[in-house]
């Protein structure tokens, strides 16, 4: 079954980080009277069976028992193919879609218990959202679009102007203030969408496939700009995408979804080296390993004697850069993280790591379950 339970260790960020957003046992079920399925405790004991029961009755569980935390300043990427429930989850987080069951804690407060009025306040100040097809108001100019949420709040003209100018500079839209959306390119339109979502200075930033509608070249550029904005603002981010390479570039952690269920949560590299099942392996198959794997990911299991004396490389060095250094060095290299010796890489350890990976993929292609997957599950 590709529906392995998420590894609990990875569902929460490192202990040093405080969760900003916490999503607990979230369900969204479409169909008639979904509430009545949640009366008993099958929800927590066997969610997979419950979802199957719903499907058999013609209901559509779009999000099945989804739980995860997002730390302050973290970029949390939800990934999956279309129909996997990722858009439903992000809409539940902002209650654009009303969840059927579960808890969504923002700064420890349950959003699902908020009244309509409180929810409006939260959306006005705490949550910002960016949409795949931009969601711009066609009748408003760039500046009016960006100022739109501020106007709704009834903010004074001067305050509004200063905030709008700030975000316009941030996304690099100077000079286009008076254009209308239909006069802009897709990339420019999304900049407006980003600026609008940031104008309210939200703490939680939701991005629903923000770059999927853009050309590949523009997409890459926008990703870079997104990362540079994030370096300045340190928002807590939930980012939806169906593009694994995009997820790799930006994610602190990735949650992979399928049929409304979580398949795996972990750092990008975890999904590549330790995929929870064939589905994940298949998903990550085309990833150029040499660019993703770092020296720290391919350490030798047995540390040869005196390895600390070997020439050192940083733990974050990609294998692509490591390869020429390792060429002809049978004794290997010492790996250090912030000056600390953490192990060593040898040609053998590198080959082993890559071979494990290849084996996994071979298994996925043959459709049989590889031992590695069994272990991971």
């Amino acid at each position, binding site marked *: 079954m590709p529906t392995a339970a998420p590894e609990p260790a990875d569902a929460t960020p490192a202990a040093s980080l405080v969760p900003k957003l916490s999503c607990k046992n979230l369900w969204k079920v479409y169909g008639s009277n979904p509430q009545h399925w949640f009366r008993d405790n099958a929800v927590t004991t066997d969610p997979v069976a419950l979802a199957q029961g719903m499907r058999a009755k013609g209901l559509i569980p779009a999000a099945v028992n989804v739980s995860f935390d997002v730390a302050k300043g973290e970029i949390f990427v939800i990934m999956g193919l279309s129909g996997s429930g990722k858009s439903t989850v992000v*809409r539940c987080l*902002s209650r*654009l879609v009303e969840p059927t069951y579960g808890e969504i804690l923002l700064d420890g407060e349950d959003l699902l218990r908020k009244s309509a009025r409180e929810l*409006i*306040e939260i*959306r*006005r*100040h705490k*949550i*910002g*959202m960016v*949409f*795949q*097809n*931009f*969601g*711009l*108001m*066609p*009748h*408003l*100019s760039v500046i009016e679009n960006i100022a*739109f*949420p501020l106007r*709704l*709040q009834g903010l004074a003209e001067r305050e509004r102007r200063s905030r709008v100018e700030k975000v316009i500079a941030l996304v690099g839209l100077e000079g286009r203030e*008076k*254009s*209308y959306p*239909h006069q802009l390119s897709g990339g420019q339109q999304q900049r407006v*969408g980003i600026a*609008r*979502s940031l104008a*309210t200075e939200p703490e939680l930033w*939701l991005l629903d496939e923000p770059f999927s509608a853009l050309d590949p070249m523009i997409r890459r550029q926008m990703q870079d700009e997104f990362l540079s904005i994030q370096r300045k603002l340190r928002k807590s981010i939930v980012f939806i995408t169906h593009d694994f390479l995009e997820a790799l570039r930006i994610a602190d952690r990735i949650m992979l979804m399928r049929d409304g269920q979580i398949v795996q949560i972990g750092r990008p590299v975890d999904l590549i080296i330790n995929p929870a099942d064939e589905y994940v392996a298949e998903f990550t198959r085309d990833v150029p390993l040499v660019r993703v794997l770092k020296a720290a990911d391919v350490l030798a299991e047995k540390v040869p004697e005196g390895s600390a004396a070997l020439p050192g490389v940083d733990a974050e060095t990609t294998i692509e850069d490591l390869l020429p250094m390792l060429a002809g060095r049978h004794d290997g290299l010492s790996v250090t993280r912030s000056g600390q010796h953490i192990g060593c890489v040898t040609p053998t350890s590198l080959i082993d790591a890559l071979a494990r990976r290849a084996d996994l993929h071979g298994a996925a292609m043959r459709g049989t379950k590889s031992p590695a997957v069994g272990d991971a599950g």
Partner: protein
Amino acid sequence: MNGLRHWFSGVHAWAALIALTLALLIFRDALAWSVRYPNEWVVPLTPWLNSGMNWVIDHFGAYFRAFSDTLAVVMRLVRNLINALPWSVVLALVTVAAFALAGWRLALFSFAAVLYMVVIGFWTQAMNSLALVVLSVPIAVIIGFAIGTLGFASERADRAIRPTMDLLQTVPAFAYLLPILLLFGFGPVVGLIASLLYAVPPMVRNTTLGLRSVNAETVEAGRMSGATTAQLFWRVQVPCAKRQILLGINQTTMAAFSMVIIASIIGGTADIGWEVLTAIRRALFGESLLLGLVIALMAMVMDRLTARIAVREITDRQDQSFAQRYRYWIIALILALGLSLLAQVMPFLSDYPREWRYYPAAQLNAAVTYIVAEFSTSIDLIKRVAFFYVMLPVKMGLERTISPFSWGFTFTDTLKVAYAVAIVALTGVAWLRRGWRIATLSAFIGILLFVGITGMPWPTMAGMAVLLAYQVGGRRMALGMAAGMGFLLLTGIWQEAMLSVYLCGIAVLLSFVIGGTLGVLAAEFRPVSAVLRPINDTLQTMPLFVILIPFVMIFKIGEFTALLAIIAYAIVPSIRYTELGIRGVSPEAIEAGRICGCTPWQLLWRVKLPLASPVIMLGLNQTIMYAIVMLVIAALVGTSDLGQMVYIGLGDGDFGVGIIAGVGMAVIAMLADRMMQTISRKQARN
């Protein structure tokens, strides 16, 4: 159960019905009831309706009168206001508005149009019609917007609103003039209320549609920006739906105007519609043409102006100063004030002098008389051919049409046998070559042409309609059709309904064939399209009366004239949708066809037409609807169908007759509409 369903969806049921039809026809002398629905079986709905109406008038009449009196006050006010404006001011305002909205070409056209109304000397009448429109459009827009919003907000409300709007638009106008007359009393207020009833539906539809089609993400973005429900509605949904809503205002304006014209049939309005109608009734063709042109021009100017508002591009206006932004308002204001003042000194600016009037009605009459006399032989020939070889066979059947007087020979028994053999042979060949559907059609047409639509036995006609509905749209459609057929039979209007179907059927068939051909030509050759477009626009905005005028002039009163008028109106959607459909075929499909080695002819028949057929079917649907609408108006020039019945009901003040016939027409229209929509949807899915 399954076997039964299978039986009903195949050829067996058709064969059985056709056999039954033949049997009924063979024994029709003994079974007279099967051809003519007996009067004893009619439910006496008419007296019930009339007494019901009387009861309503007795008990609530006072309230309705009070309402209409209030409305009359407002109306007089608007009327006086508009009439108080010097013609020169109106001319200036319309021209400036046209220029501001659409540039100098429309400005020039509007200027000429308004000037024509002045010069011809029917200014007051035209302004009286305008006053009705000016009053009814804002009310209709507000009501329509409110109902449309309700339909958007609540699925359940929408389910009730939709059929009501269908009914309001399909029940012929003449049918609800009478109840309004009875309830609200005589006078221009009737025109106002009738035009409200008729003008609200397009606003409702466009509002709901516009709000529904606002981009979902834009709405989500609005909600995520922290909009309250009211903010979301007024600041996101309504502005985003603005274009569609403005389109609704355009359609509402046109509907209101056309109804104002139609409503003048009851008289007492002193407006331009009344003048035209009087002229048509007195057979004064020159007058009716000149006055009809006033209506046509008013309609065109109103349509172009309101349509332009809807399609205007959003432009950058933030950098402009106050004067720049409102320059047209300022110009208009200055002109209006200036001309009003000037009119004090130069009275001809407000009251156009009679001696400057140019009214060439007499000359036109002479010209028409001359032309008709000159071409009388060919006109007669056209009329005779159409009448004896197309219309009568469908209506009365060949057995009653063919005579030495009409066709030049007698329909002897030998010929009848030969006809039967030919039809049987044709059906057989069709079955072998094209399958049972075409064969059934051919057998049906063979019988129909022999006995005529009025000679067909009603039990099997109704049966075939229900069967067709079942095969097109399943059990629900069949139930609807059965209910409709039941209504037509039980209320005793079957005969008239069949005559409506006959007139409409021929008109639709001809419109579809001719219009489709024109549409194909327009799609293939740009110049054809360029020529057809303004003609289509004009025909579509023209109040329906006006279309009658030229045909009455040449062909006089009669069913043939009615047919031509119906075609003239109903052909427009056929042309438009065919052109649209063919132009909409994806270039890739056409390239693929070319690569496969299609000749242009094959490309048209094998690729373009099949791919365009869902759109063309929608066009056919519209053509049917238009034909039914025009049918009622065509009753003015002499028909004998439901439309005439509605008209008679109005003339005699017989509420029951008028409303039953009106609802009968609406029933036919709605059934045809549902069937065509389903067919079009099915095709689009394949």
